[in-house]
């Protein structure tokens, strides 16, 4: 069998769009795992999903959407605002799910709603946003942004701490916050220079 569970090893030519696409694929797989499992497996998969979504959405908010706003012919601000609105809505659903935990009554329904919202959002980006980045942003700039995002995520914890309390916070709490900060710092440094 092919390595369906291992994330793709990034090559030197990989740019930030490749990286975000690979993360979309990982997010899809984690949703499948969460929805199809129970008990500790589900809890672990959901923790992984929360962490990945936090890092991924932060990278997009910091990199992709601001860049897309500046590009001619990309639909501009209105399109970016729509993506940000989708992200806000997804975060609200995610916060509810985190607060209740995987054993809560409404989790099964909520996770499907979240999956539909997140995957629709991802496809919108892939169809309307990423092609403009590839077309209009210099390749070396897209590659250096990939390096920044990867570096930030590499230093993040591999999994949120299994503290029962951490699940009571919202998205901007505990391990998820650490990931967001690291990603944000790493991305802002090269772009401000």
């Amino acid at each position: 069998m092919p390595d369906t569970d291992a994330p793709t090893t990034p090559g030197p030519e990989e740019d930030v769009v490749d990286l975000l696409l690979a993360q979309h694929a990982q997010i899809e797989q984690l949703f499948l795992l969460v929805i199809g499992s129970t008990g500790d497996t589900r809890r672990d998969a959901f923790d992984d999903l929360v962490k990945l979504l936090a890092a991924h959405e932060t990278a997009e908010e910091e990199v992709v959407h601001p860049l897309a706003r500046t590009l001619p012919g990309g639909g501009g601000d209105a399109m970016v605002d729509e993506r940000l609105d989708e992200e806000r809505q997804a975060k609200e659903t995610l916060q509810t799910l985190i607060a209740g935990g995987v054993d809560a009554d409404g989790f099964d329904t909520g996770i499907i709603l979240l999956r539909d919202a997140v995957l629709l959002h991802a496809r919108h980006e892939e169809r309307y946003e990423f092609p403009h980045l590839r077309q209009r942003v210099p390749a070396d700039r897209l590659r250096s942004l990939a390096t920044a995002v990867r570096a930030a995520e590499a230093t993040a914890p591999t999994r949120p701490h299994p503290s029962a309390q951490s699940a009571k916070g919202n998205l901007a709490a505990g391990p998820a916050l650490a990931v967001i900060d690291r990603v944000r710092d790493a991305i802002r440094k090269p772009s401000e220079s």
Partner: protein
Amino acid sequence: MFNPLDHKGVPLDGQIRNWRELNVEPIDPEAVDPYTRCRIITMNGIEVEAINFQHQFARNCPDQEVRRQLAYVRYVESQQQRVVNWLLPGVASVLETTLGYEQVAVDLTAWVARHEPDPYLKQAYEFGVLEDFDHLYRYANLYEMVERRKAEKIVNGLTEVMPGRPTTQEHRHPFDEVRTPYDRNSVDPRSKLHALTILSAEQQVMFYYMNVGPQYMEPIARQLYQEISLIEQEHVTHYESLLDPGENWWERLLTHEYNECWLYYSFLQQESDPRIKAVWELHLQMELAHLQQAADLLRQHDGREPEEIVGTAGLPEPLTFEPNKDYLRHLLATQMDVTKLGEGYVREAHERFEWMQEQLHDGQKPPSEQVIDMHRERFGDEYRIETEGPHPVDTLRAQGGSHA
């Protein structure tokens, strides 16, 4: 067995659907049975053929009253096509739908090959299926490069993904694509349905690739669609030439409607999604009425009874989407190096084959080879799904053999 000629179906004047009925909820791509997707893609191809066939009929028909009747049923068939194809979800990408198309081409053609009673026709399906099998492998590699996802997401272990007859070897002289047609008077009625079904499916693949290919920005994607869409056009020539050109318009119309009844009936038997099953049920009831109309036209204008065209036995065994892994592995092991000469099959690279290869390739690697090279370069290997062991052909085993 169910005989559609014995049923009236939904009256024709009750078959026009309103916007609410046309606005169908698509399948959930994250939870769909892959063979439900295959059934949707198949019926889309069948309905597209129904529409195009009836347009051609109308252009060749001097009788205004018949033209009006054809126009009405064609409009209904057109709404059926919209409903069926709109079951595909907007969140699926073009490449994901493409992988679905190739899964259809593999498992549909393999099933038909296994059930075809005529040896010469059976050979035509066995020959063709190894080529679509290879396309699935090429597109799976493109998919991982362009979308960073794995074809397993689409085929879900039901169909293996590995090299078939290499696409580069599929470019033959068009003369050699033309087959010997069956004889309409002596052929088994099942063979007529098989040929029309595979022809319709391959024709839709051709239409799809030749139209969506240029929407890609990635050069390798544009080129691969261009190459494989040219093969699909050759497949249309291959399969359409199996049909007896002596069949007149009236009997062809009857065979088309009868075939639609067979397929909706088949898919109704096996559909796992109740909502989609309801669509197959409704469409079967509509097709029964179309068949009645075609039978009346045949009687009035051709003086024959429908049983003279499709037999008295009723529908054949339901066509089934199911894994064909062992059968395909057997074909890979025995028919990989076959090509065509004249209306037959040979194993040597004959002069006309070599001539065509030189004209087209002109010393360059075609996109179907480049896509695998690029995948190896970028990911260190090629994408395969070999669930039943290593490739049956030694020379086509994965380098390093790590995928088995």
